[in-house]
């Protein structure tokens, strides 16, 4: 199965890249955008069939390495 991990800055932590992209969209006249957050996506191919085990493993990977939980949140999506 595949695990799709989305990492982004926590709400309340200023996202400078999101702000810059927002500015750029504004200057392209996309004036209906109220907020932009830039994150990163990490796609893992797992040799695992047990979803519970996969979720536990990927959560540990996020806590240990994939995200810095001082400033970032992560979301995990498992895809068969």
């Amino acid at each position, binding site marked *: 199965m595949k695990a799709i991990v989305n990492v982004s800055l926590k709400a309340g932590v*200023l996202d*400078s890249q999101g702000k810059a992209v927002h500015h750029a969209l504004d200057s392209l006249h996309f004036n209906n955008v109220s907020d932009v957050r830039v994150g990163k996506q990490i796609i893992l191919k797992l040799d695992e069939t047990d979803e519970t085990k996969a979720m536990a493993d990927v959560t540990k990977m996020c806590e240990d*390495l*994939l995200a*810095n939980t*001082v*400033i970032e949140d992560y979301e995990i999506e498992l895809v068969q």
Partner: protein
Amino acid sequence: MKVAILQFPGTNCEYDTQHAFEALGATTEIVWHKSETIPGDTDLLVVAGGFSYGDYLRSGAIAKFSPVMKAVSAYAKNGGKVLGICNGFQVLTEAGLLPGALKRNEHLHFISKHHHLKVLNNDNVFLEKLSKNDVVNIPIAHHDGNYYIDEKGLSELYANNQVLLHYTDAEGNIKNPNGSIDSIAGICNKEKNVFGLMPHPERAMESLLGSDDGVKMLQGFLSA
């Protein structure tokens, strides 16, 4: 006085750091990150600047799992003195040896220039040669130097005199180059044996090259 200097793939300030400490009379040894031990006679361990592992994923994120980092943690927890400069500061926050994190600079630029810093606290071995409110001129060179810590963490830092340096102008007024919370340029841990700063004191050793204020900073470690 023996200074051990860590070298990861992508570290690029290890020789400047070595030169700076040797000029001050210390003996030095560069320690490759695959080493599982650090020299037994180490008096100060420096995590030098650069771009360990190409800053992949996040600055310092991958270096924290290098074999040598277990020895670094043990050394620090045992009271050993550790100094992280620039990428070294990022590595120490990622490794949990210093609180907070370093984010991308607020205006997204890589900043490379001399900047003034004001000493907030000198009740520690690092800055004891300086006085409170002294202003030093030290180069900065970073992309991810935007220090962040949550409100609770920030008030703890101030309560324990852990905020060491603020970015300022030459008169000591706050001047924030990178968006760091409260314009913080350097901190230490609660026990005051682990230090981290984004500016490069090892690049400010000769007045001919712009500033020798780094001498006063690094000298603190030598008299200890």
